């Protein structure tokens, strides 16, 4: 497939997935909204934000503040490039695609930290520090569970990992993988119940000073990041495009949408925990479990 084709495919997945996520989130969490208004809600909200004037703060780092949402969106797109959507790509895919994805997802830390730091305002900055504490605690388990799927597939290419699941999904081969992946992915996308950097106790945290088009861009970039994380979860744990009867791309869309709706559901229904407790959870619970996942998968593969 041509570079342009892959670009259009990724853009369509990110925009479509962001819409699905916004509608699901509205249906689950929006109070007093009927079904029809939930489907038009993302468009209305976008129009509202685009018409809103962009406020500023005293002596912000304006360049960093404007560019951070674009960096976040760019990272979501880069992470999605290595994932085959409709079937095995004829030109072969990126040999170290899984590492490319991991690198893009860990630089999210930089984008969020800068977005919180740039307004020169105290609450967004605390939100940025919170995010740094969270990501540094779950970065290792996140990388470990993603990379563990490369052990039975004997390849770091996402296409090969999908192909190697033709008999059995890695959801069943590595039962610890998907739960740890979803928890850490929700934290990396600062999605509920781990939306502590944007917590209401910080009056919005990293977005406390953001408004208008800048906030709209940031919201879209975060939704695109959720889509990329769900795409990768569907590819490495749920068999990606593999499935009977329906065409491959439709299976990818269905599996990604299922993960997105699941994340929207847990994000709205589970209780928030404090950052200190989350850091403890990351180091004491998730990291050992991820190591167990690596050891067991390695042992099974031998």
């Amino acid at each position: 497939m041509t570079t342009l084709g892959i670009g259009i495919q990724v853009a369509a997945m990110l925009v479509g997935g962001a819409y699905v996520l916004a509608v699901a989130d509205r249906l689950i969490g929006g109070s007093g909204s009927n079904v029809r208004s939930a489907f038009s809600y993302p468009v209305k909200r976008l129009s509202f934000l685009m018409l809103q004037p962009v406020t500023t703060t005293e002596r912000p780092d304006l360049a960093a503040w404007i560019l951070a949402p674009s960096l976040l969106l760019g990272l979501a797109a880069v992470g999605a490039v290595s994932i085959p959507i409709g079937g095995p790509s004829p030109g072969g895919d990126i040999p170290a695609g899984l590492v490319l994805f991991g690198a893009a997802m860990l630089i999210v830390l930089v984008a969020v930290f800068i977005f919180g730091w740039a307004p020169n305002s105290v609450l967004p900055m605390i939100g940025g520090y919170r995010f740094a504490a969270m990501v540094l605690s779950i970065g290792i388990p996140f990388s470990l569970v993603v990379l563990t799927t490369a052990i039975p597939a004997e390849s770091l290419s996402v296409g090969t990992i999908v192909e190697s699941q033709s008999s059995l999904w890695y959801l069943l081969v590595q039962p610890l993988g998907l739960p740890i992946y979803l928890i850490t992915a929700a934290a990396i996308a600062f999605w509920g119940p781990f939306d502590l950097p944007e917590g209401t106790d910080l009056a919005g945290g990293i977005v406390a000073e953001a408004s208008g088009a800048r906030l709209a861009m940031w919201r879209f970039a975060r939704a695109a990041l959720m889509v990329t994380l769900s795409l990768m979860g569907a590819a490495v744990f749920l068999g990606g495009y593999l499935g009977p009867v329906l065409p491959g791309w439709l299976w990818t869309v269905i599996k990604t949408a299922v993960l997105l709706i699941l994340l929207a559901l847990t994000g709205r229904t589970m209780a928030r925990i404090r950052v200190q407790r989350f850091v403890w959870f990351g180091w004491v619970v998730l990291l050992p479990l991820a190591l167990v996942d690596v050891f067991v998968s390695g042992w099974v593969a031998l």
Partner: protein
Amino acid sequence: MNPGLLSYFLVSAFGIGAVVSGWLVFRTDSMLRAAYWLMVSFVAVGAMLVVLDAQFLGLILILMMSGEMTIMAIFMIMFMMNPAGLNPMTMVHQHRTSMVAGVGSFLVLAWVGVVAEFPDRPAPAVDPTAALGEELLGRSMLIFESAGVALLAVMIGAIALAAKRGRFGDADAGSVEPEIDVDTGSRT
């Protein structure tokens, strides 16, 4: 444009980017900006490696940098007691020593670049994962195994430290809201 010319162009562009962002590290007036310009410089070097067909190495370099640079920035800000890192401050000191060190190391590296004989055979087309496995368990086994065991020990040590009961109570002490005494209405 043929692939050889394209990669020549890309390597040059990323190389210039790495040098310029490395120079900007010392031209900014804030520790956070300096740390992240340094990260941009490293990412450009990683991109050069990717273009030069060392995909895995380049991507791992980029992967490591985001966390490292943020930790470095946080520690610098803590030690400088400049909580946001936003107050302007100069990023250069010890001018004479650093100038001598900078020019000296540039000359040494340039000399190596000019004098050393680099192999010009094209990289063999093998699966990078297989090549990496051969390298890890082949001639570099001792280095990688000792580094790997050391890193695993560090991870287990970090878990032990994080999970340990300390003199201030449980590891997660203070992260849970104290319960409210219903009779008095105060926190116990």
